[in-house]
């Protein structure tokens, strides 16, 4: 018993003060890409050629954050002349089209559906479905329950049954073998229900794009309300998405 108390004392209070204060992330973190629109065409082309995810639109000078895995190759190739990844982790959107970014993003709170805020703003129960996920997105959703992020203080919880849920949180590129289970889980959630796509996989197939064994994006199967990009999204990105969209 004594060692339990001693440990408790040593651990101290660890919960971050987000969203009131923004916790610092280490400098090498790659968040929202900043784009230099005046970059030379050849530089942008070189970035596009090197991009393993083919996420760069050379003509429109945009990056598709739904395809991007934030590997930073384009920043390296252009020496920062076209793209620099900032420490801004607040990158979720309510529309797929908004992820095709020129470096700016609309305010998520103003684009979310207002009746969702009214219904779920004070209590939101989530059912997570991993549909081909690599366990990175799942891990960084799980971590929201740990003391540092403490998701429950916002009235948001992950629940065991879709019957208890208001929303499903989908990770993974929706493998063909998970499609039926995903649809059944969705149908088991009472209406009105929300669909949240976490990670580049459910948005575009992520690293597995082009595989015949996955869906070409969750949107081809279900209506998606909230897009949280990343590979995986930082837990703070998940937290921001949930808070700004529903609160």
């Amino acid at each position, binding site marked *: 018993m004594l*060692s*339990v108390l*001693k*440990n*408790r004392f*040593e651990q101290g209070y*660890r919960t971050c003060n987000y969203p009131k204060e923004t916790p610092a*992330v*280490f400098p*090498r*973190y*790659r968040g929202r890409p900043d784009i230099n629109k005046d970059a030379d065409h050849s530089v942008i082309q070189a970035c596009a050629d*090197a*991009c*393993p*995810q083919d996420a760069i639109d050379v003509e429109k000078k945009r990056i598709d954050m739904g395809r991007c*895995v*934030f*590997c*930073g*190759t384009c920043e*390296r*190739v252009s020496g920062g002349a076209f793209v620099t*990844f900032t420490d801004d982790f607040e990158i979720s959107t309510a529309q797929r089209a908004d992820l095709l970014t020129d470096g700016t993003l609309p305010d998520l709170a103003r684009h979310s559906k207002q009746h969702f805020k009214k219904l779920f703003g004070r209590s939101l129960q989530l059912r*997570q479905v*991993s549909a*081909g*996920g*690599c*366990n*990175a*997105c*799942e*891990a*960084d*959703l*799980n*971590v929201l329950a*740990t*003391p*540092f992020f403490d998701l429950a203080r916002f009235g948001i919880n*992950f629940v*065991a049954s879709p019957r208890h849920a208001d929303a499903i949180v989908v990770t*993974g*590129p929706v*493998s*063909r*073998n*998970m*499609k*039926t*289970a995903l649809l059944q889980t969705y149908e088991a959630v009472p209406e009105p229900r929300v669909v949240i796509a976490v990670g580049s996989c459910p948005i575009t197939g992520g*690293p*597995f794009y*082009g*595989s015949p*064994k996955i869906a070409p994006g969750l949107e081809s199967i279900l209506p998606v309300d909230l897009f949280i990009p990343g590979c*995986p999204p*930082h*837990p703070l990105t998940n937290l921001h998405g949930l808070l700004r969209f529903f609160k």
Partner: protein
Amino acid sequence: MKTFIPISNGGPMLRADIPHLPFDTFRTQALDIVKNGGKVVHFFAYEDSGILKFLMVLRTHELVVAGCDAPETYLSLTSECDPFHLFEREMAEQYGIRPQGHPWLKMVRYHKNIRNKPDVFNNDYTQDIPGAYDYYRVDGDDIHEVAVGPVHAGVIEPGHFRFNCIGERVLHLEIQLGYQHRGVETLLQQVTPKRLPILTENMAGDTTIGHGLCMAQAVEALASVAVDDGAKIIRTIALELERLANHIGDLGALCMDVAFLPPANYFGRIRGDFLNLSLLLCGNRFGKGLVRPGGVRFDLNDEVRKTLTDRIVELKPQVEHVLDLIFSASTVRARFEGCGRVSRDDAGHLGLVGPAGRASGLAYDVRRWFPTEWYGYLKVPENPKPSGDVYARALVRKDEVLQSLEMIQSLIDRPVTTRVVEGRMPTLPPDSLCVTLNEAWRGEVSHALLTDDTGHILRYKVKDPSFHNWNGLAMALRDTGISDFPLNNKSFNLSYCGFDL
């Protein structure tokens, strides 16, 4: 007479130098090696100019390789020797070849074979559900079945578990996976080379460094790309950070499953601190984007090294104290000890690797036996535990946590310099083979890369340690209370996506 010949871990060789045996000789020799204690690292098929071939890599005190032409039907090796069982099922599914006399010829991942041959399992793939399968049944009035998954109660990956129980006692657990199948091996053979690092990093995201290293080492060996010492040290640190984060997370989760909540919460948080150290190093909490052929994309400059050192100095006593808290609690010991025992014999037959194998007394550790990167210069202790229960699996993790911390500290106590690489993929030589092994946190990860006569990838075979270990979990549940399933499951914590590919 031609026989299996030794190869080195990460050593390139010409495909022409792989001993090509008559099938019967191949079969006899393989059985002989494995019956005498050898282990199967790879046993897979590939098509070479329209001819289907087998390739096998076995492990004794060294790695040995041989190949042969693959017959459409053949006398199963599993019928005489257990460790081949899943490899033969996988080949039957991937290529439509039939191992005669296989004792449990069942689909692995539920997909059509790539040669459009008649399906070995008589599956109708127009149906979506891999669960459409006759599960093993125990008959009797008092027997009941429990079906769990694919969608589980927690935030975890999908898989189906079918328990046959009498009362609380599990007589048999059958695990059916395949729900996560994304066609990774086929993709690896088809995509442009620039996608290779991203795909290998994401086939199992909690083993990003393990799989990333296997790919990078194979490409480096084949293309004769040199890696400097600094990069090797950074890669070793990254692999140990991955081990730390996962072991610590699992030890916390084990406490959660026995309702000892303080350490569950502490380790939940501390796990995140270790993930953040990977972020400190390369900008991603799982190490994605760090390892590339030729070295690493991020250096360990003095500023990063100082932060890393300070954080480890701060975290180490916290970790030690929480470990003490867990392992000195009699309530924890009471739940862990004797629960879900896998005997050394069974572990050997199943071919268990990694901490799960070590917990059943199999000392094998790639870092000691076939060291890569900087491990040749490090003291990696042996961690075998005799008891094979949840307690042993937790104890192995505990030992490895403390050892990893020491390894990292010894590696960062002096400056590390490396020339960072951009990560461009070199061209590969024609008609070559390379097999790489690394000890990831779950155990032996191995990739085998074969090129064709133009230097394109002919076959990319991936083996996650979970491929060996899932049957260990099924075995642990025999005669165990079904309420202890979560505890046993977490003590293995196997990969669904790494298995399903």
